[in-house]
Structure formats: C-alpha cells, structure tokens
C-alpha cells in the first residue's frame, strides 16, 4: 500500500519536472535566449524541482534539461551534436551542477526525515515507558506489558515469553508464527531477525539471567528500535520481579513475626497450666494420706505432665534456633566427651533402647560450641530412639579423618525411603513413616544441620543399604590447641 503510494507520487513529481523543463524550453526558445542564459534558467528549475523530490526523479529531470539545452539551443540545432567547445562546457556544467545540487538536496531531505522519524520514535518510546512505569509493578505482566508497545508502535503483533511464569502472552494477529519464533528465541537464548516476515525476536537479559523473550511483527526501523524496546521490556519485567520478591520477603517476615508471637504465646499459655498441674500433682502426695493407688496415680500425673513440659521446652528451643541465626561460641572441646555424655543421657531417657558409644582412634581437638553440639547430637539420638523399635540398637561412633572428625549416629531401624532421603533436612518436612511412628515438628534435623553448618561441618544421611540408618555429623579438626591465658 505505501510502496504504491510512493510510486505514484514519484511519477507525478517526474511529470511535474518534465512539464517545468518543457515550459522553460518553450519560453526560452520563443524569446531566442542564448544557451548560457537558458542553462541558468534550467538550473533554477532543477533546484526548484529537487526541493521536494527524490534523487532519481531530480536526476532524470537534470538529464532531460541537459538534453533539451543541447537539442534546442546549441548549434547545430535539433541534433545532439556539439561543435563548439564553449557549448560543451556549458552543457557539462549544467549537468554536473544540477546533479550535485540534486544530490545535496536529497541527502539533506533524507537526513531531516530520519531525524524526524527518530524524534517520533523517541517520543513513542518515552510514552510507552511512561505508560508502563505508571502501572503498578504487580500489574505489569502479560498483556498489560505488551499493550503500550502494540499501540504506540502500531505493530501487527507483539509476543512475550515470561521466564518467571513460563507463560506466553500475545497481542495482535501474527501472520508469520510470532509466538513460535519468540519461544525459539527464548530456548536458544539468541536474538533473531526474519526480514521476509517483518519479525524481530530479542532475548531479555538482566544481571546475567534470562527474563524471557519478546517478539515484534511489523516494527518499522527494527535495527534501531528493537534493542531499545527490548531494554524497556526487560526493565519493566525486572521491576515487576523485584517487586514480587520484595512483597514475598515482606510476607515471609510478617509470617516469622507471627510465628514468634505464637511461639511466645504457646510458651506462656501452655506451660503455665502445665506448671500448675505438675505442682498440684506433686502437692497431692505431700498434703495428706493417700492410698498407694492414689499416690501412684498422682505420681503418674506429675511425671506425664512434666514430660509434656519437657517436650514443649525442647520444641520451643528448636523453634528458636530455627528462626534465629546460629552463631556458635567456638572453643577447643573434646568431641568424644560431648558425644559420650549425650549417649549416656539418652540411655537414661530411653532404657528400652540399646545405646552404645564407640571411638575409633584418637580424634583431635575440635572447635565447637559444646552446648549447640550437644543439642545437635541429642537431636540425632532422639530421632534414632524415637523412630526405632523397642530393643533397637543405637550406636554413637566417633572417628577421625584427614581434616575432619565424624560423629555417626546409627540405628538398626528401617532405611529411609529413597524419595525422602533428599528432603529429610528440609524445614518442617516429615517422612510418611515418621508421621505414623511418632510426633515431631519437622525441625529437628533441619536445626541439627544448621548447627553443623555453622561449625564449618555438615550433617548428612549415609547410604548404608538395608543396614539401618546412619546420620553423619562432620566437624573440622583444629591443628593445634588454642593457648589458654593464665
């Protein structure tokens, strides 16, 4: 449509040029003007003609003027032959000057046109940007992001593949399979141009990561505009991503505050009545004479309520370590002593489990926070006892490696299912069997690992086939014992 319009305009301009030259020729011929004066008038006509037409139209008119000068005004007349040198110079001068003027005019006009186009594009880009950034960051996704591009740049179609949501959004009607080409661009991570289809695809990058890909169909001046539009789209997408992550962080922080408040309330509201029950049950046995059965029942209430209290305390301690950053107060300590003490404690707590301790070779001094380390080992022992059968064997084994000491806590229970192995250290995760076997918070292993990592070590589940379950806690071994000031 536009090319036909341009052709028609070129033909009209050419006709006008020919008419102008014809008119000048007729007038000059009638008044018998000499060749030099006529050449000057031709030149004026050519300059006027080249003011608003392209180079080729003006060049054709220039050649026509030179031919007309030769035919009608240079001897011998009505031939294209030139006999006098002066006439030849006049003719050549006319041709050269008219062509140069035409060229300069065409270039300056093209530059003006380009500059106008650029200004228009800048304005469109500015308006599209303003429109996009005026939207709420959370709303600038999908079609809302594409609409300003589509309307401001009069595109046939525009398409976006969003990496975060893995969704494809399209506006307009594509004739060249824009969506497929945009998706291909995203997958390959490369920009692409399809000149025959008028399609440009640009990948959207931000800080080294891909945000998606955007495709334009029917974009004029794509080499200039496509990078700018892609940058704008990337900025808007990134802004939306940052907003979403900030909103999620704020929601997480709010959830944590709420959790802390609930935990504190739980500590108070739960443990206060428990304290009353334990005290009252203990008081029963000292206030008066009770039958042996009554005394036994009172003792049972006291023991069980106290146990509930211990469980609550332990759960609250885990929850506190979970929400706080673990900062161990490191000091040289005997890992064997810590492990042994925990093993002994659990022997008393779980008399129906066969808990033993073994030490393989000399383990160097480790730098640990003894209290935190006891807590981590106790957690492993707690799990080993809680999730095993009565009379199960539990072994705490200490061994030393090249640069690390390892504390293995093994029990002869059923192995942890393969699909759960990678998830058991996740916060709040509880295995299917674990949920059936015993109560728990899903925080124990998570916190134990957090403690191990804070010590520069690690906690992992060992692969020992069908032979029970082993958790290995590793700790870096210090080369020399820290000196102690007297």
């Amino acid at each position, binding site marked *: 449509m536009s090319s036909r319009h341009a052709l028609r305009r070129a033909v009209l301009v050419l006709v006008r040029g020919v008419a102008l030259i014809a008119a000048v020729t007729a007038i000059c011929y009638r008044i018998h003007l000499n060749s030099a004066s006529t050449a000057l008038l031709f030149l004026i006509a050519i300059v006027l003609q080249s003011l608003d037409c392209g180079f080729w139209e003006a060049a054709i008119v220039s050649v026509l003027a030179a031919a007309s000068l030769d035919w009608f005004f240079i001897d011998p007349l009505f031939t294209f032959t030139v006999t006098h040198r002066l006439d030849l110079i006049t003719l050549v001068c006319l041709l050269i000057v008219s062509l140069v003027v035409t060229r300069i005019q065409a270039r300056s006009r093209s530059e003006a046109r380009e500059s106008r186009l650029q200004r228009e594009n800048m304005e469109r880009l500015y308006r599209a940007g303003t429109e996009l950034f005026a939207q709420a960051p959370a709303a600038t996704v999908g079609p809302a992001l594409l609409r300003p591009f589509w309307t401001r740049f009069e595109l046939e179609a525009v398409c976006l593949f969003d990496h975060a949501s893995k969704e494809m959004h399209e506006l307009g009607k594509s004739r060249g399979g824009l969506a497929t080409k945009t998706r291909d661009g995203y997958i390959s991570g490369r920009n692409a141009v399809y000149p025959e289809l008028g399609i440009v695809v640009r990948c959207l990058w931000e800080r080294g990561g891909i945000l998606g890909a955007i495709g334009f169909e029917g974009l004029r001046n794509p080499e200039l505009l496509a990078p700018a539009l892609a940058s704008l789209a990337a900025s808007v997408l990134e802004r939306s991503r940052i907003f979403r992550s900030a909103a999620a962080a704020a929601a997480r922080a709010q959830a944590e505050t709420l959790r802390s408040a609930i935990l504190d309330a739980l500590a108070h509201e739960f443990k206060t009545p428990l304290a009353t*029950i334990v005290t009252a049950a203990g008081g029963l046995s000292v206030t008066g004479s009770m039958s042996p059965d009554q005394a036994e029942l009172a003792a049972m209430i006291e023991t069980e309520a106290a146990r509930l209290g211990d469980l609550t305390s332990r759960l609250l301690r885990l929850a506190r370590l979970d929400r706080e950053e673990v900062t161990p107060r490191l000091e040289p300590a005997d890992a064997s002593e810590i492990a*042994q003490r925990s093993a002994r404690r659990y022997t008393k707590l779980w008399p129906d489990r066969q808990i033993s301790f073994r030490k393989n070779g000399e383990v160097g001094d480790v730098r640990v926070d003894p209290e935190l380390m006891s807590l981590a080992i106790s957690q492993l022992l707690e799990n080993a006892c809680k999730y095993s059968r009565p009379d199960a064997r539990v072994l705490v084994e200490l061994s030393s490696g090249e640069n690390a000491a390892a504390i293995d806590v093994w029990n002869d229970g059923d192995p942890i299912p393969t699909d759960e192995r990678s998830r058991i250290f996740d916060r709040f995760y509880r295995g299917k069997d674990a949920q059936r076997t015993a109560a728990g918070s899903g925080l124990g292993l998570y916190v134990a690992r957090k403690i191990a990592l804070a010590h520069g070590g690690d906690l992992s589940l060992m692969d020992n086939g069908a032979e029970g379950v082993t958790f290995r806690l590793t700790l870096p071994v210090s080369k020399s014992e820290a000196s102690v000031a007297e």
Partner: protein
Amino acid sequence: MPSENCKVLIVDDDSAFRRALRTSLAASGFDVSEARNGEEALAVTRDKPCDIALLDINMPGMGGIETCRKIRSLSPRIGILMLTVRDAEEDKVQALEAGADDFVTKPYRLREMIARLRAVRRRLLPPDEVPAAVLRAGTLELDSERRVVTKSGAEIHLSPKEYDLLSYLFKHQGALLTHSRLLQGVWGAEYGGELEYLRSYVRMLRKKIEDDPSQPEYILTEPWVGYRFRNPADAESPLSDGE
C-alpha cells in the same frame, strides 16, 4: 533440713498456680504468703519480711526482673528464686545479674522446687562458726591456708588459676554462678566475656577432680548460663548436667 521457719513469698499473676504452689509448699512445712504482681510483692516484702521470694519473670506491670532488682535493694539478705516459662538463657542471665540466687523453668517437679528452695535457704543462713580453713565436698578437700586440694586423701596438683577457680566454686556451693560472675570473681573485674578461658579451666578441673569428666558430679554445667558446684554429700542438690 527443717522448713518450718522458712517464709516464702510467691509472686505470680496466675491464681491457679499460686494456689497449687501455696498448698503444696505449706504442706511441705513452709510459711507461705502470696502477691499477684511486682508492686504487691514490694509492699508485702516491706510489711512482712520473708526469707525467700519466688518470682515469676513474666508478669504484667513491673515485670519479674525489675521486681527482683527492687526486692534485692530493699532486703539484701533475701533469697530470690526466679520462675520462667521461656527457658531463654538471656532471661536467666538477666535474672541472675539482677540479683536472683537461682531459677527454675516451669513446669518443674515439686521436689525439685523444694530442693532449690532449701539450697537457697541454706546459703542464706548465718554461718554457725568462723569459716573453716578446710572445706569439704564429697571426697574433695580444699585447704585454703595451704592452698592444697586433695581427693580421697591424695593431693591433686592444680595451677594457681585452677586453684582460684575451684576455691571460688567451693565457697559458693550449690549456687548457680553465671559465666561473667565467675570470670570477674576469679580473673578480675575487667573480665566478663572470655568464656573460652573459663570453659578450658573447667575442662581441666573436671579432668583432675571428677571420676568421669564426661559425667561430672562436682562442677555442673547450666547451658549458656554458667556453672554450679555440687556437693555430692548433699542429697537434696539435683544432679543434672542439663543440656
């Protein structure tokens, strides 16, 4: 240990708890009075001096820590036992530094509470005679004149600092001593945060005086708070090297 003459003031905002504790302690031979909050506790302490105050840390109004500080300044010789539900070390350290003698975490068994009350009471009683030059705890003997420590009659070699630490612990038998109090008492007022020193010395002392250092009977750890020196001959003092 007779409890008949021991006057205990229970300060807690929970009436059911006060009632249960009052009845139980009264049945165990204590003379019990009550207060619902810190302000009331101060008034009661002024009107009717007691031997030991049982103070809940979390109370509306003045709060347990502030009440502890005020009661301590009002009657320096009173025993203060703090009660807490939170089991948070910072609360315990704060309470001990505000002048409390000990603390128990709710819920606790009555006999544990009574043992703690009696231990506090015992430390408050005026000494019957001039302090003995030789202090005893189980099979340990500390001769402060000769600076010699023996275990079952055999002399234990201690470095000067080890001796100072053991002597300090010996003199405060049964009391819960915070890390900073021990450091300041043994190393000097400018100390307080050098936990590593303290722990290293406690480790070395345990190796020398305990039968099994992994199961200490004398120097017990109160995790994240401090240490307590226990006299094994004292049946009422709890053996809990808690974790």
